[in-house]
């Protein structure tokens, strides 16, 4: 067990890679009542085409299967795993993203048993035809719920406008139609390929004693047999750098229109500190111009082109990346056009040193605030780990950034062809 000490933050992380390849990270916070455990596989909705373990041919599985599998892991032949956590006074949950599937619990007692339960249920799949069929109705309602949410539709619509072929454009839960095709055998194929311990990370943070917790995890894993770590062959279609459709809109029963401006980010070969620097710079630059203290925000707000719902984000991950800005607007065409112009204007702009220092301070503060949350630490540490970044080394990287770096970044950030505008328009019979 290796000890990583981060002095300024007063945190220590204990890490170990077990014999079966599982990476374990522990963070002890004895002043908290709570413990948070999260068991993550580096497998998400974009991993649709791959060579199954023990086979030679590539397969493409139905859309939404990673998420479907997440639901089904909770059901065993004789019981529902939620009840196991219930019995231990804990609460459990799970989520699926583009690149990950994670299973988690929070507990304030019986932490060791909860960690065992987490490991055991994820590592003991039971899928039957009957239970797969039953789940289709539940997930269909989950999809319908999102169908009625304008924010989700505008977010996903923008991604669909940016990407031609890449499965990031597929809704994480799939569609009501695509999930009908999922079979028990598909689930086993995905499970066996992606849930090998060597493709997974366990993070436990909170009221724990690291030595004994690591021993417990080591023993739990030592008792189980796994085949040798497979090499996972995932494949993704070729994706052009330009946006799939420059302008697109849908209508929905919304009271106010929404306009989103998306920028497709080129992430090829990007990882580790370079990826982190880009993520941080992008965030700080957008913040400088488009947060409430920004000149662009002020102009848009005063002209009533945007309101409080205006947001922006940059997401960079393995194989894809995007920046999205937008929100509700009474004049969506005008808003989108002006935001696009602004993005172009950025190319020749430079943030004054003093202002850049202010943005660094803001970023540092945001980071420190986030560290109050065990969930943030464990989730973000795991996410960064899979991208070759150490969460607790973010602070020195922020410190190292300069206004020159920002200028350099902006110079060749924007490619006109990589921009897409997506709108949600109110139905004509509504306001």
């Amino acid at each position, binding site marked *: 067990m290796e000890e990583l000490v981060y002095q*300024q*933050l007063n945190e220590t992380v204990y890490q170990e890679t077990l014999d079966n390849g599982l990476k374990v990270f522990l963070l002890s*916070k004895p*002043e*908290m*009542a*709570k413990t948070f455990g999260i068991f993550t596989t580096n497998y998400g909705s974009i991993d649709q085409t791959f060579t199954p373990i023990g086979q030679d041919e590539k397969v493409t599985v139905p859309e939404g299967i990673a998420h479907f599998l997440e639901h089904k892991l909770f059901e065993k032949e004789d019981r*529902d795993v*939620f009840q196991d956590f*219930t*019995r231990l*006074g*804990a*609460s*459990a949950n799970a989520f699926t993203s583009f690149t990950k599937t994670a299973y988690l619990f*929070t*507990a*304030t*007692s019986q932490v060791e048993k909860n960690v065992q339960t987490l490991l055991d249920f994820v590592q003991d799949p039971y899928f039957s035809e009957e239970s797969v069929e*039953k*789940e*289709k*109705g*539940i997930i*269909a*309602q*989950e999809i*319908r*719920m999102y*169908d*009625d*949410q*304008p924010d989700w539709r505008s977010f996903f619509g923008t991604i669909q406008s940016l990407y031609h072929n890449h499965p990031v454009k597929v809704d994480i839960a799939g569609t009501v139609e695509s999930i009908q095709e999922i079979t028990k055998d598909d689930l086993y194929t995905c499970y066996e390929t992606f849930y090998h311990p060597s493709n997974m990370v366990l993070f436990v943070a909170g009221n724990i004693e690291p030595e004994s917790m690591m021993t417990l995890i080591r023993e739990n894993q030592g008792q189980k047999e796994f085949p040798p770590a497979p090499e996972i062959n995932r494949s993704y279609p070729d994706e052009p750098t330009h946006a799939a459709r420059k302008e697109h809109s849908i209508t*929905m*029963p*919304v*009271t*106010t229109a929404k306009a989103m401006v998306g920028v497709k980010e080129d992430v090829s070969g990007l990882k580790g500190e370079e990826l982190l620097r880009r993520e941080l710079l992008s965030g700080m630059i957008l913040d400088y111009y488009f*947060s*409430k*203290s*920004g000149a662009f925000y*002020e102009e848009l707000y*005063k002209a*009533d082109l945007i*309101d*409080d*719902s205006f947001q922006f984000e940059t997401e960079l991950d393995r194989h894809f990346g995007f920046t999205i800005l937008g929100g*509700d607007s009474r004049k969506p065409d005008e808003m989108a056009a002006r935001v696009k112009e602004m993005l172009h204007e950025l190319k020749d702009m430079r943030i004054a040193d003093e202002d850049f220092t*202010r*943005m660094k*301070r*803001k*970023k*540092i*503060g945001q980071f*420190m*605030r986030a560290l*109050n949350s065990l969930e943030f630490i464990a989730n973000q540490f795991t996410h960064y780990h899979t991208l070759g970044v150490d969460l607790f080394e973010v602070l020195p990287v922020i410190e190292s950034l300069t206004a020159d770096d920002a200028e350099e970044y902006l110079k060749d950030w924007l490619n006109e062809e990589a921009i897409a505008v997506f709108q949600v328009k109110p*139905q004509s019979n509504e306001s």
Partner: protein
Amino acid sequence: MKITKETILEKDGYRLHILPSKKYKTMNIVAKFKAPLKRDGITERALLPHVLQKATNQHPSVRSFQAAFENLYGTALSSDGSKKGENHVISFRMEVVNESYLNDNEPILEEAFQLFHNVLFDPKTVENGFDPDIVEREKQTLEQKITSIKDDKMSYANLRLMDHMCKGEPYALHVHGYQEDMSSITPESLYTYYQQMIKQDMLDVYVIGDMDEKDVETLTDRYFHRSGSTNEDNDQVSVSKDVQDSSEIIEREEVNQGKLHLGYRTYTKFGDDDYYALQVFNGIFGGFPSSKLFMNVREKHSLAYYAASRFESHKGLLLVFSGVDPKDYDQAKSIILDQMEAMKNGDFTEEQVEETKEQVINQLKETMDNANGLIEVLYHQMLSGIDMPADQLIENIRGVTKEQVVQMAEKIKLDTIYFLTSHEGGEE
């Protein structure tokens, strides 16, 4: 578990609550203004936090105001309005990095206190009112917020349920305010309302984080004054309607999924002896994934992705919510009603009672790990005139028996069934 240490001090027109804790890398400062929930002035009250968070006399431009917070290591300021029974509470929250984690140990806490003070007590004024440009723009923002509630169908269905169920009771009032009031609000009238709120509301200030209590007191003494205010409790006791017959309401919108919400009356409030039984009742009925609603509506019949219940502690309401296909209305409704019947019939095991208690306790402990969560728990207690350490709360939950849960179920009455559905689906 450790008992939370809370020092309460009567100050110059407000109550100061100091909560030393080593759990956080930040300091949280929360100011809570409480007044009776009333139709008159409700839109002013909803608009005020928007205006106050835009500029102060010290930082009169919106951008310089925001930049001041950014310079203080991105100190976060937010506010929200909520109902505590039939009282309207506006909370202003500020979170600032604990200076001991900063490289140069810059003394930013004092500056943060000063800024917070200025937001509340020295907002930007022009002649006898607020800045007219800010007021005009924030009125638009609030109007936007009021109309867009309809875009979030779960919140909208909940709002409509309250409109119907609590009609004529203050609880039905909308804390976001009303569009029809906007035209009569001027920078001067809003300022008049503000002066009244600043003087007459009950004000509680909470400070939580890793710090010396004396230092906190010195800082608040330096910056927070409400001279001339007696800080009297202005509590409005909630109406508790005796339900004779339940009603059923169906409304139609362009939706893919129907929203089925049920409103019950519990006749039980925070501070009542049987409040703990209500917590356990809710846990078995719909509070967790192991509850009856989740197990039956979702797991057994695959009708929904979510089916749950929660209760309101000061008004005495229990609310059930689920998202179902419009065609499944009757089936989902009858399953939910059956689960309530099962609760009344004691159709659950002693083991379930024990497990649920542990879950309720787990939830409470988790809430108290969170700075804002802890403040909410303590504020609730204070409003209900209870001063109970966490250990005692937990003991009381542990003491609940199956019989008490059944008695609670018998006490609960169905008031309104509300269904927001598509134009085609459901019954007439």
